[in-house]
């Protein structure tokens, strides 16, 4: 358990950097988490992050990477719904890394 500092406020994260309280999330929190990983979030990153937040709101889980890839393809087009594109954006694994910045728990099935 640790904390990250976002605009003067300490936010609790677990040992892998995921938010402890989902309600603490703001875009600034996502940006700060990415900065810790040396990742600059672009519009393309945010598309995926926002998609994950919507998915979670609807289904109450973070999708497995296979499901994410398929759903992104349906929503944002085939040029984005493939592993290559998503792994380039999120080299630590699209579901795992993007879920972290989205303030969501690690996808079910990720060990």
């Amino acid at each position: 358990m640790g904390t990250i500092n976002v605009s003067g406020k300490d936010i609790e994260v677990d040992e892998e950097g995921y938010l402890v309280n989902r309600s603490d999330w703001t875009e600034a929190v996502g940006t700060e988490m990415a900065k810790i990983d040396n990742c600059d979030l672009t519009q393309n990153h945010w598309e995926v992050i926002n998609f994950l937040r919507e998915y979670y709101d609807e289904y109450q889980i973070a999708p497995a990477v296979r499901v994410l890839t398929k759903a992104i393809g349906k929503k944002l087009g085939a040029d984005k719904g493939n592993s290559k594109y998503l792994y380039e954006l999120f080299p630590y694994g699209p579901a795992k890394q993007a879920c972290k910045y989205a303030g969501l728990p690690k996808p079910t099935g990720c060990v």
Partner: protein
Amino acid sequence: MTESTGGIDMDEETSGVVKKFLYVNRKAPYGTIYALESLEVVLIAAAFDQDVSLAFLDDGIYQIVKGQHTKNIDVKNFSPTYRALEGYDIEKLYVEKESMEARGLTEDDFLVDVKVMTKSEMADLMASQDVVMSF
């Protein structure tokens, strides 16, 4: 750490066998951990490209009933997750007719599309599986 579909080398020699898995859900969604655990196992197993079916019997039928509100018992309402199963290519959901009728429910009360089958059809379904896991 690996992503849920990664880390395992599914080449042609090892991925040839597809088994039929049936997850049998018999318990009410809250009060015990069985329903949630079953759902998590199903979601994890979905990554392995097996032939997966879910059956709902007895009080397990309440797991997929519409309009669950869990705020006052202070647990997460995970019922929306059943609607994510389709995206995981899990589309074979079965409800036992006798259990459904005994609880005054109809197909319209469920938040996912299901196939209703009689106790004896359910027995045949179970007999046709390679693996049956009961929760």
